[in-house]
């Protein structure tokens, strides 16, 4: 089901016309590649290895807490790749749940930007996840972003403690704004910041012994999960929509409802100059409510190039800005 449309058909048509002009006019007068301001803080939860809180104008508020627990490898001599992928568990919880909200309409929250249609009509054919399947693509971006496919570095390697033991990383995302379509930008930014500020305690027992590992209590010598000077960094997901021939970054709920096509592009920073690798692309459900019937039902190749190109251009700066904020706030700069 597409995200709830807050506007009436004439309003959507007006918005569609305004966005398909050359140059386009957005309702809040932003540039097509301009992002809205966010509030971001990190390292404020005492029981967590890493934490972050992000507030966005429409998408709401999101708190992420990362906890690492020592776990024994499932097999003694080696861990196969499928098992290694279980070392990270992502869980997304939406405040207010998905259940009660459905009956009373969208009383509480404005819908966030949608990602991929959630199948099912009002829960008639089986209940669907209240979080819109966010946990799946968050984890996908994380594992791919670390160069799981052969770039010589994987976040999973950082989770190995000693022979037979590893860290199990629990990434718990708490979405405080009730919505059935969590914004990918909100969630991925929060996870990115939390990961960048995550510290793991330093190992004091030797590496090659099979016993339970022991760690130092001194957090001053703990190791960060993502070294500040190393690349790649954790990924973020940027939503982008197209209306007519124009492409817009950080679309508002109304713009998503009027858009003809949408994508969520996950990128991670690979060097200091700001170039990024694309580590995931997914289609995003848009309202298609503005345009005429029969026009554009999907994404043509030229449009695809433009949408991805726009994201790639801006992503480097966004991620670097986020990184700087994280550095300033981490408890040990």
């Amino acid at each position, binding site marked *: 089901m597409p995200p709830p449309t807050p506007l009436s058909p004439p309003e959507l048509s007006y918005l569609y016309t305004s966005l398909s002009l050359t140059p386009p006019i957005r309702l809040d007068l932003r540039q097509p590649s301009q992002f809205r301001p966010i509030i971001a803080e990190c390292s404020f939860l005492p029981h967590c290895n890493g934490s972050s809180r992000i507030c966005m104008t429409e998408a709401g508020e999101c708190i992420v807490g990362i906890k690492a627990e020592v776990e024994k490898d499932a097999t003694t001599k080696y861990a196969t790749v499928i098992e290694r992928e279980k070392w990270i568990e992502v869980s997304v919880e939406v405040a207010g749940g998905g259940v009660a909200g459905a009956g009373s309409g969208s009383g509480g929250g404005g819908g966030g930007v949608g990602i*991929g249609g959630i199948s099912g009509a*009002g829960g008639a054919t089986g209940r669907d*996840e209240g979080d819109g399947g966010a946990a799946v693509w968050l984890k996908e971006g994380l594992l*791919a972003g670390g160069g799981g496919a052969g*770039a010589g570095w994987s976040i999973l390697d950082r989770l190995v403690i000693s022979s037979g033991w590893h860290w199990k990383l629990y990434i718990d995302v708490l979405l405080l704004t009730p919505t059935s379509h969590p914004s990918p930008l909100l969630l991925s930014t929060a996870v990115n910041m939390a990961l960048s500020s995550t510290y793991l305690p330093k190992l004091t027992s030797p590496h090659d012994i099979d016993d339970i590992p022991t760690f130092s209590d001194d957090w001053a010598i703990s190791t960060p999960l993502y070294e500040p000077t190393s690349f790649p960094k954790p990924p973020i997901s940027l939503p982008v929509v197209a209306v007519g021939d124009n492409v817009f970054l950080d679309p508002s709920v109304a713009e998503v409802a009027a858009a003809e096509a949408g994508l969520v592009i996950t990128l991670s920073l690979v060097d200091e100059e700001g170039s990024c690798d694309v580590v995931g692309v997914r289609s995003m459900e848009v309202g298609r409510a503005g345009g005429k019937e029969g026009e554009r039902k999907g994404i043509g190749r030229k449009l695809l*190039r433009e949408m991805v190109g726009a994201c790639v251009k801006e992503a480097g700066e966004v991620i670097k800005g986020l990184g700087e904020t994280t550095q300033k706030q981490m408890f040990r700069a």
Partner: protein
Amino acid sequence: MAAKAPDRRRNNPPSHGTTPPVFLSSASSGAVKPKQSSRPPNEIRKIFLRTGLISSVTGSSFLEIAPLKLSISVLGPRPLPRTSSTPFAAQAILTTEVKFAPFASTVRRGYVRDSSERDLGSRLYQALVGAIRRELYPKSRIEVVVTILDSEDEGDDVNTVYMEEGKTTVETKFWDAGRSERALGVVLAGCITAASAALADAGIEMFDLVSGGVATSFVDEVGLKGKGVGDAVSNKLYVRDPAIAPPEGKVPLATCVLGYMAARDEISELWISGKVGTKNGTAEMDELVDEAIAAARSARGVLNEAAKERVQFIVDKTGTTEPLKEESTDVQMTG
């Protein structure tokens, strides 16, 4: 998890559990590697697609791309339940459900849908929703139910690790990463193609048939340690409709799965996972997407044939395309 109090009444097994023994398939020759197929990289596997096999539903199809087998039923358009909880819908509401049968893979799956099946369901929804003329069926629902009967298991080789003789440590081979995306990608591409056939069989009007295509890019295993993708050797091997096991000596980089409307030249659903460099702008992504589109075009040929076959079958069955004339049994009233 809090530690359980030790159970003193019995002789207990080891507290942290045991793992079953893992055997190499052949002790003498070391590990047995899976057979590499001789299919050229730009050729997709043979597709068997037949519609109209299930008579109790509006439309159905069966697809086989060895070893994948799946069956799709389309129910609808059916009226929406008229309770107060379902709001008025000016367009048909499409529902997609994907389920692996419990026996479909080496490791048994349960009866409850897990997150990857739900994800596939929403991907399929995204692929089909733009193509169906939903405005022709207000206040209705259309359900597409996919059951996967057999699949190339994403973890088939999970217990076979290719250990080199004499080595005491094991390097995890990076070629294994991205495996589940490749497996699910092949399944998704098959689902999209078969779902279009089933929708056509059900007689639901569409703007265009959507066919599914999947392609993976590989690079040589050697030249990649520690560098970003952009620095890697630019000799990429693109394989359409990839098998789970990668080609000899190659490491997978990225997989692209898409739902493609050939007549309109539009992509209705796009899913790229893995690493795509941006040193040349979008050129690398373009190449990958082009390969997947080519795979989708090949599948479209089969889809067209399947749809035509069905129409032909119906025409033959009725014998003629003209409406049947019945003897009138009405009684003429006189007087």
